[in-house]
């Protein structure tokens, strides 16, 4: 298990931004978009064999010519205020076939990522993902920020469209962050390294489906831009978010009226003043998920066969 360095640049005041696949690929899309827009260069990769099962074999004329593994790559780019390091993991190293990182492999992976961060002189690491929220897909996703030290709370509270766990309805400042996005915060804290997870909201009824949710990613990117003190060209991100909303609205319009009616109530749900609206109850949430699940399974089944 090792990091292989292709380049070892001298970086000034660098910050690391890490992402893995997750619900709606919210974090992954945001970080990958930023990496591409900034034309970051590949710097290093983590040797995959100890962490992952191969993802693809290529056989040509009876000869096994290639076996590909999920990638875990570091990129860097020089930038005005902070140089940036991106870590993009194609899969989370899960033991037992899950999607989210678990077990000793996850711990090793998180430590390797932080080894690279510290070797390059990073003093802060961002992870990014999705926050499942009782919201409607036509609403703007807010960003839930969870830092690994209390000293960072005021900074993140000051950013536009950003909430802390204590601002979220019924949470009382508590919750959990699944997989490497969370694990990295904890291990960074043990190492005395600042780390913050920024999570873009995704509607509760989309959490179980393999749709990307770039509207959540756009919000994450906006908060990252503010935290890094930089301007980011959002044109492509805006386009992706709009296309996604149009597609979802197309599907939404095909929903049976009784499901749509339940989902429409989410348009009025806000964290700031839930009591002022017709609140969504836990029973409503469960019913919505069951109905939408049934509907989308029927839809996708129809397309596949």
């Amino acid at each position, binding site marked *: 298990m090792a990091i292989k360095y292709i380049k070892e640049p001298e970086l000034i005041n660098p910050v690391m931004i890490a992402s893995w696949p997750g619900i709606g690929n919210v974090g992954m899309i945001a970080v990958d978009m930023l990496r591409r827009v900034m034309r970051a260069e590949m710097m290093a990769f983590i040797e995959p*064999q*100890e962490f992952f*099962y*191969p*993802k*693809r*074999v*290529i*056989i*040509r*004329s*009876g*000869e*096994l010519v290639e*076996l590909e593994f999920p990638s875990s790559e570091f990129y860097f780019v020089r930038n005005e205020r902070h140089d940036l390091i991106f870590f993009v993991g194609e899969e989370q190293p899960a*033991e*037992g*076939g899950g999607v989210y990182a678990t077990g*000793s492999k996850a711990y090793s992976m998180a430590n390797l990522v932080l080894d690279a961060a510290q070797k390059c002189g990073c003093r802060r690491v961002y992870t990014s993902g999705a926050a499942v929220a009782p919201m409607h897909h036509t609403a703007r996703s807010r960003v839930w920020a969870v830092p690994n030290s209390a000293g960072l709370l005021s900074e993140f509270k000051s950013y536009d469209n950003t909430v802390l766990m204590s601002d979220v309805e019924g949470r009382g400042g508590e919750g959990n962050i699944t997989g490497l996005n969370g694990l990295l915060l904890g291990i960074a804290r043990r190492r005395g390294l600042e780390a913050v997870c920024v999570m873009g909201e995704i509607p509760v009824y989309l959490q179980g489906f393999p749709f990307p949710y770039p509207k959540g990613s756009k919000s994450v990117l906006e908060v990252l831009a503010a935290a890094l003190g930089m301007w980011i060209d959002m044109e492509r991100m805006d386009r992706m978010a709009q296309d996604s909303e149009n597609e979802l609205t197309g599907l939404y319009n095909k929903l049976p009226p009784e499901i749509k009616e339940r989902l429409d109530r989410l348009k009025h749900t806000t964290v700031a003043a839930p009591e002022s609206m017709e609140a969504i109850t836990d029973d409503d949430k469960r019913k919505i998920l069951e109905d939408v699940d049934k509907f989308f399974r029927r839809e996708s089944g129809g397309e596949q066969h």
Partner: protein
Amino acid sequence: MSSEPVFRLQGGHKLAKPTLIVAWAEDASDVGVRTVDYLIEGLGCREFGEILPEGFFPMAGVNVVNDVAQFPESKFYISDESNLVIFRSNIPRTGWHGFLNAVLDVAGHDCNVSEIYTLGAMISPAAHTVPRLLISIVNRQEIKEDLEPYNVMTGTDYETPPGQKPTLSSYLIWLAKQREIRGVNLWVPVPFYLVSIDDPRACKRLVYFFNSKFDLGLDFTKLDGEITQQNNKIARFFERSPEIEAFVRRLEAGDGLDGEESEKLAREMAEALT
């Protein structure tokens, strides 16, 4: 990762650059393990060692199959006379890289094997009466020439489709290539309606290959008997069920069955033959 040894070997051997044959349990028709069981019995192989299960299989209890508690096994057998090593194993559930490297450690360091063959079945839409092909995937181009005299297909093009994963056998010969060990995956097509039952024809195709390639002098009487027995059972079943016979005749003629027909054929054949 644990630094404890992951395999245990027993006794010495007189092997000189032997060939390793690898079979995984839980394959279609259990073709691989049935083939190596035939070789182990026919060649009088002795147990040589094992890869220990910890770290590769869940140790949270046992599965019960046909009323019997199961436990994963990953064992090596050798035949000094035939210069063969056989590895018969359940498929590890985790730690694949470490597991396959342990196989190669035993193969390379302890047995000095020169080449590895893995056995497996692929599901075929063809009828059981169609002669079984043998398809190879090699980890070095030059191995193909060695296989040609044995009527093995060597020209496959393939890429893992989205949503699927490569086989453990592919992974093994890819790792073997990095250690400069020649590797071959052998695949036998098994009719879809025999996947949950035996396919002695598929086993015979593999046994026949090894018998020819390594001049093993094996007796095929038992396998031939199993094929005859299955033929008789199928013939009796056809007498009782002309519809199923018609399905098989259509497959023989190269006509496909629809989903419902295929499901019925597989279900009723499994009931009739088990």
